[in-house]
């Protein structure tokens, strides 16, 4: 933690006051370069050590699918998964080309002929699954935020609403996604019947499960943020006779932004974890399904492919958090608050 903050601080300094950073560099060239050097070096060394331990431990473990894959094997599978994706795309393009020429020929012979246009139904590649998961988690998270922020604001402003909602929130918050899933699946199957559906059922089930699991931290944090607004700021709003909406927009929202974002970041993290589990259980398209399919498949490459998925899941989770952090920095008025 300390180390991370150091990296960021030195980064911020160069960004904000470049002349001062330069001055520092001139005054303490050795120290300055040294700091950056250690800042880069330490994580790299740690990574190398991790790879070494992994590789040596993996070589000791023999499984039913062969030896536990080490970093090299996993890297090979990463490349292989990517080339699978490229190959699949090429197949798809060729399929459409063939279809077009076939249809063109047909129309040439008989302009009134009925032309069939079929969409390509090849298997989803790892990259496709990744984007499906991303799309699903973002949809579920957005819906959750749209519900949770207003609910949190109302519950923060009114003690009565808070008392009414709090027991429900506390009960639903710890429920595992795996418990929501069957209920959501059955309700979606029953309610969402349309000849030309806008979304696939599996997408809805996954997204709603994400929504149900990741609302709670945002509601709770928003509510705490709103209820802990400085009494004096509310008095300012009373003296100015701000209307209800103006008060929310000008005073309540900005002052609880830091807490709201703390909640949103928690929510998104939970949402991502929940989604992978839900996809595994429900066999809904996405990275979770990929992991499960590979597990069932049980080929000699499966373990390495699952490990690729694990890393990708981790990296995406990390990137989602970084995006939220950037957004938080963008809207936060409190420049002094340390956000990590």
């Amino acid at each position, binding site marked *: 933690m300390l180390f991370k903050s150091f990296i960021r601080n030195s980064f911020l300094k160069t960004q904000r006051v470049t002349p001062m950073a330069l001055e520092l560099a001139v005054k303490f060239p050795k120290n300055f370069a040294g700091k950056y050097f250690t800042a880069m070096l330490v994580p790299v060394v740690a990574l190398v050590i991790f790879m070494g331990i992994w590789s040596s431990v993996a070589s000791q473990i023999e499984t039913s699918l062969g030896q536990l894959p080490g970093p090299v094997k996993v890297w090979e599978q990463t490349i292989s998964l990517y080339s699978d994706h490229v190959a699949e795309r090429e197949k798809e393009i060729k399929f459409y080309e063939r279809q077009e020429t076939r249809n063109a020929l047909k129309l040439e012979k008989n302009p009134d002929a009925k032309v069939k246009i079929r969409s390509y139904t090849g298997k989803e590649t790892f990259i496709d699954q990744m984007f499906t998961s991303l799309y699903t988690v973002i949809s579920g998270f957005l819906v959750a935020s749209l519900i949770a922020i207003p609910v949190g604001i109302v519950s923060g402003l009114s003690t009565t609403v808070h008392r009414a909602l709090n027991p429900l929130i506390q009960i639903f918050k710890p429920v595992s996604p795996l418990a929501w899933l069957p209920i959501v699946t059955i309700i979606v199957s029953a309610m969402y019947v349309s000849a030309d559906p806008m979304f696939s059922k599996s997408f809805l089930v996954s997204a709603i499960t994400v929504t149900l699991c990741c609302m709670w931290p945002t509601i709770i944090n928003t509510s705490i943020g709103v209820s802990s607004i400085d009494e004096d700021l509310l008095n*300012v709003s009373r*003296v*100015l*006779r*701000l209307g209800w909406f103006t008060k929310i927009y*000008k*005073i309540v929202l*900005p002052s609880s932004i830091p807490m709201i974002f703390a909640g949103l970041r928690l929510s998104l993290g939970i949402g991502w974890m929940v989604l992978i589990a839900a996809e595994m259980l429900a066999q809904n398209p996405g990275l979770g399904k990929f992991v499960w399919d590979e597990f069932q498949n049980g080929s000699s490459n499966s373990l390495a492919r699952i490990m690729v998925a694990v890393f990708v899941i981790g990296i995406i989770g990390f990137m989602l958090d970084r995006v939220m952090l950037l957004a938080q920095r963008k809207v936060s*008025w409190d*420049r002094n608050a340390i956000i990590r």
Partner: protein
Amino acid sequence: MSNSFLQLSQVCIDFPTDNGPFRALDNVNLDIEEKEFISLIGHSGCGKSTVLNIVAGMYQATTGGVLLENREVDEPGPDRAVVFQNHSLLPWLTAYQNVELAVQQVFKKTMSKVEMSDWIMHNLELVHMTHAKDKLPSEISGGMKQRVGIARALSMQPKVLLMDEPFGALDALTRAHLQDSLMEIHTNLGNTVIMITHDVDEAVLLSDRIVMMTNGPSATVGEVLDIELERPRNRLELADDERFTHYRAEVLRFLYERQKKQAA
């Protein structure tokens, strides 16, 4: 009926506690003329802030009431602008935007955008803060924050300016600067001001009348002291003035002889 500008008549207020109602103020009567500068002074806990909050409309008197230009005060409003002790600027808005929030709210129907902008700058000018108009509250000193707070209150063109220990949190030098600014503004604009203070010198220097309050519970107005010093006042000249020393001694005697705090 009386024609006082601002009239507090028989104001009593009870706060509910576990042991029944607690009478904080008892029978407070005060008549304030337009353009008058009044200081409320008393030991802490005597209900000075409660008086101010009742005039502001934040609290409702249990019995009695407040009349401003013969109309009853029953809710807060910009005609009774408050300068809070801890400035209470919105930390995410710049100095300019903080004043703007008030101006937009009060003059949204009567002023054009250009007029508003001129009016905001005019008020920042009054407190000598135009140079920092684009600074956030966290980027300026305590004294500057309080100046912006005063500008915000002035920009509402209040009938009465209510100040709750406005300079209490500032160091002595900054406080003196702000007192001078406040005197200057009061001379130029002729606002009616009620100010709470702990500082005897400040009260004598700034006020037309000092209202001294008895200790609570059931606090009320103890004595009212007229300060007959001609304006403009100069703190250096007054330091050697016998009348100034006399008024100061009067207030001190009230506070430390007649209203001596038991085991403070």
